[in-house]
């Protein structure tokens, strides 16, 4: 459809147009009712049924291609009969070739590696408006595509192409019915009117409006409130760049611009030619049958084919031969002239020929440079051609790419004719179509060549995926008494031992020194025994750089090992921004910030961690906590690249641990194991570690506490801490840790002690029916209560039901805490009720911001966090009221 017609349409098709009269409405409703019934019946058809019908329709279309082309030319007086035959054949044969093996019924595509499948659902009844420029080919195309997708169509052809379209619909319908299509699958409006179109566009049983035409039609379709595919006019710029094959380019442009007398809206409108080849190109056009207009002839042409009022093309010229146009405007040309070529100096209203011209008139522009050429092409693109089609002839890939980036169109045709190239499947592998999506710039919902997938509701069957999980720990762990002797097997030129003052004082540093590989330069870096500060890290990195260390040995508790991890990170990746690396994340594999050591940097120093407490398990974990005193905050780093390369779990370093520290770290270890055990990230790989650690802690923690010199108990608790850490390194912890972090930091309570105060209450809480389940692709159903029961069984605590076993587990933990002489309430620590109450909002906020709970089996509500905190404050026995806010799961 031409722009001028489109403009007329815009004027003609306000959606407020007066509606059809009652008899006409009855007629229109009957068409829709029939089509709706046919569409319903069609849903029962198989792929084989559909393919059989489509094949028959295509053969009928090919058989009648010439007949329909003749009808179209006779009725519309546009275009060339021979070319319309080709169009009809492309609409049949080429479209068939594209759709014939494609599934459009049932499951149409499967993606086994993504556990996804796509299932086709027909739309139902389509209301289709077809243009005057490509009338019968558009009808053939839409009929074939509709049947392939089990839809029915009511056609409303352009009034000046009604007879040929109605005949095309009849031919398609008869072929379809003969081969089993539902009755009423196609219909064609008798004497369509504007009110008919408006009424049908809003009809409740029309599933989709498929409007091919000008902006008026498209706008009306999109304004109707119905889903619509509206595809409209263009203004195709062509860039003939100096590296192109001029002969091929000129032939292709003539083929395209004269095809059906230029009625295809993708045909070339303004040709932009590089200065270097401009004269040669025009010469070639002349040789091949084009008439080159001089300035006077160009003015004549402008006045003759462009409406001075609207600035758009004159309808009388659309689809006419070059010689007829020349005769009409009084221009003298040779009898065999194919094309009128007219130079222009720019784009816009002052250059009338720069608009869309659906007839064999081509504007040409001499470009001074590539930049000038791209600018003019962009100007043409923005003068009515946004979203449609552009063409480039070039051998310069860089220019082709730049052209593609700059020009906003759905199709960029390279080194081939625009009109036929855009139709697809002839000169390229574009999807064959007779409806060009023009994107949002053209007021359309798609830039695609419209085809079967636009006529389907595609349903996605998304099966639950079994996400990959992992179990990552240091690749070397040495344990039991004197495991430190293994240090000798790690060659090093220069080793930095990071430790704290106590380790030096009690001679542990000397033990380590003795076992380091001979001939190693050893330097000891003593840091304060507290959570590492930024300042300390900086000092450590300076030392590492100064000595160019190739090995770091961290000797100490969690703080020292954490410090060494961060020093190594900054040593290997000085550019690493710790603040950014601490950014929150939900899924390790999808985190936004990637650690540099994990992706970019080569390994520069081996980290060996020797634990001197039995609790944090930092020697095997991927976590490190840093205190930024300057900014008054803690930074928690988590990445497997932080995991030490070697862990040494030698109990000789914990034999002298004080009782209080033994109890605190031991309960931390038990909490790690219990939380990892019920975590949403728990796996068989972490479960075995968690269960082993629970068993060891229950058996040996009281002994290590009461008989600090018991070597076996110390050894087993040291192992338990490491094993529990392997579990929580991979399964994470839970809400117990989130709360303990919050109030421990606020009131200066040791981490293990804070955990102990929460532990019985959190177990009871997690064992109850959650108020809110935690979304987790890793777990099947809610199993926390059953896992607690399994731990109770493992410990031989007795109980018949899951509920009894959970109660027994809680009671056993309370008994253990009593034996370890733990305070059993926050109140016992001397914190007043008023002070605690005042702190509650901050505590809840801090706990909720803490990433620890994200793997908790139960999604904690803020009100529940408040309740848990108060329970810990008062220390009411959790064993007697396991339900917390709801009853226990059984």
């Amino acid at each position, binding site marked *: 459809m031409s722009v001028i017609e489109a403009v007329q349409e815009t004027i003609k098709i306000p959606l407020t147009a007066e509606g059809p009269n009652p008899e006409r409405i009855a007629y229109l409703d009957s068409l829709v009712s029939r089509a709706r*019934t046919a569409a*319903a*019946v069609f849903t*029962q058809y198989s792929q084989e049924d559909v393919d059989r019908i489509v094949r028959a329709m295509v053969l009928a279309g090919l058989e009648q291609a010439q007949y329909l082309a003749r009808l179209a030319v006779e009725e519309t007086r546009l275009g060339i009969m021979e070319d319309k035959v080709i169009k009809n054949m492309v609409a049949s044969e080429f479209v068939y070739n594209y759709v014939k093996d494609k599934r459009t019924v049932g499951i149409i595509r499967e993606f086994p590696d993504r556990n996804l499948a796509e299932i086709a659902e027909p739309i139902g009844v389509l209301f289709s408006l077809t243009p005057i420029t490509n009338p019968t080919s558009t009808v053939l195309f839409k009929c074939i595509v509709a049947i392939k997708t089990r839809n029915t169509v009511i056609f409303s052809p352009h009034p000046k192409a009604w007879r040929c379209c109605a005949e095309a619909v009849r031919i398609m319908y008869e072929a379809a019915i003969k081969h089993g299509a539902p*009755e009423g699958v196609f219909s064609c409006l008798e004497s369509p009117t504007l009110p008919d179109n408006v009424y049908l566009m809003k009809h409740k049983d029309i599933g989709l409006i498929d409007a091919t035409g000008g902006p008026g039609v498209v706008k009306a379709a999109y304004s109707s409130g119905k889903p619509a595919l509206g595809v409209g006019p263009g203004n195709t710029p062509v860039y003939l760049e100096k590296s192109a094959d001029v002969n091929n380019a000129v032939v292709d442009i003539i083929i395209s611009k004269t095809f059906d007398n230029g009625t295809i809206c993708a045909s070339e409108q303004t040709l932009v030619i590089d200065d270097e080849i401009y004269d040669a190109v025009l010469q070639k056009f002349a040789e091949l049958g084009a008439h080159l207009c001089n300035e006077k002839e160009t003015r004549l042409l402008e006045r003759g084919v462009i409406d001075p009022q609207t600035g758009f093309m004159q309808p009388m010229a659309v689809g006419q031969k070059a010689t007829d146009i020349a005769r009409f405007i009084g221009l003298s040309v040779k009898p065999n002239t194919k094309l009128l070529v007219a130079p222009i100096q720019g784009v816009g209203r002052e250059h009338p020929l720069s608009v869309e011209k659906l007839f064999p008139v081509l504007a040409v522009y001499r470009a001074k440079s590539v930049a000038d050429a791209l600018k003019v092409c962009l100007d043409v693109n923005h003068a009515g051609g946004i979203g449609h089609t552009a063409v480039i002839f070039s051998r310069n890939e860089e220019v082709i790419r730049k052209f593609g980036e700059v020009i906003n169109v759905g199709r960029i045709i390279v080194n081939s004719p625009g009109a036929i190239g855009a139709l697809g499947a002839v000169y390229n592998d574009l999807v064959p179509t007779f409806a060009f999506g023009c994107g949002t710039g053209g007021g359309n919902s798609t830039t695609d060549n419209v085809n079967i997938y636009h006529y389907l509701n595609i349903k996605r069957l998304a099966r639950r995926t079994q996400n990959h999980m992992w179990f990552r720990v240091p690749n070397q762990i040495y344990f039991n008494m004197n495991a430190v002797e293994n240090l000798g097997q790690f060659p090093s030129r220069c080793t930095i031992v990071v430790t704290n003052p106590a380790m030096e004082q009690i001679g542990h540093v000397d033990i380590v020194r003795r076992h380091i590989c001979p001939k190693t330069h050893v330097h000891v870096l003593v840091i304060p025994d507290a959570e590492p500060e930024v300042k300390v890290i900086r000092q450590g990195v300076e030392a590492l750089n100064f000595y160019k260390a190739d090995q770091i040995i961290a000797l100490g508790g969690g703080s020292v090992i954490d410090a060494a991890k961060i020093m190594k990170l900054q040593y290997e990746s000085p550019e690493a921004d710790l603040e950014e690396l601490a950014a929150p994340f939900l899924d390790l594999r999808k985190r936004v910030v990637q650690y540099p050591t994990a992706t970019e940097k080569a390994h520069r120093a081996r980290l060996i961690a020797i634990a001197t407490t039995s609790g944090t398990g930092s020697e095997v974990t991927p976590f490190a906590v840093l205190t930024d005193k300057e900014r008054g905050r803690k930074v928690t780093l988590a990445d497997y690249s932080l995991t030490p390369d070697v862990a040494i779990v030698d109990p000789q370093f914990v034999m002298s641990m004080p009782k209080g520290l033994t109890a605190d770290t031991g309960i931390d270890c038990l909490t790690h194991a219990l939380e990892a055990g019920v975590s949403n990230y728990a796996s068989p790989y972490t479960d075995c570690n968690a269960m082993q650690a629970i068993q060891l802690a229950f058996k040996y923690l009281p002994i290590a506490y009461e008989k600090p010199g018991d070597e076996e108990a110390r050894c087993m608790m040291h192992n338990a801490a490491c094993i529990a850490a392997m579990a929580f390194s991979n399964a994470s912890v839970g809400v117990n840790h989130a709360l303990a972090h919050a109030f421990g930091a606020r009131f200066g309570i040791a981490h293990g002690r804070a955990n102990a105060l929460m532990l019985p209450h959190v177990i009871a809480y997690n064992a109850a029916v959650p108020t809110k389940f935690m979304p987790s692709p890793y777990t099947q159903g809610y199993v926390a209560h059953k896992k607690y029961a399994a731990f109770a069984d493992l410990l031989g605590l007795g109980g018949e039901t899951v509920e009894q076993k959970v109660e027994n587990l809680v009671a056993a933990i309370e008994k253990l805490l009593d034996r370890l002489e733990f305070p059993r309430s926050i109140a016992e620590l001397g914190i007043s009720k008023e002070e605690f109450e005042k702190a509650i909002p901050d505590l809840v906020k801090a706990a909720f911001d803490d990433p620890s709970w994200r793997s908790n089996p139960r999604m904690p509500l803020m009100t529940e966090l408040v309740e848990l905190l108060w329970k810990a404050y008062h220390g009411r026995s959790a064993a007697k009221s396991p339900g917390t806010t709801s009853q226990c799961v059984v």
Partner: protein
Amino acid sequence: MATTAAFLKIEEQHVLSALQRAGAKLENENGETVLDFSSVNRIDARALQALEEFARIADQKAIKVVVRGASIDVYKVLKLVKLAGRFSFVT
């Protein structure tokens, strides 16, 4: 008031004629009529028209129509043409 139930087996090859016959019989029925669609895998436009007519007559005579054994594909067709609401369905 006593009610009687008529049971009509509909064969796939003769859906249209079976429904037309059933429609004619409705004149003498009361209570409930069961249409057994368990042998019907596909239904066409004419059968749908006959079914609609059947529903109309049944409505007039206040006869409850139960469709038994309709396949899910046939049931979907009845939903799409908005006929499903006029019948009761049993599987």
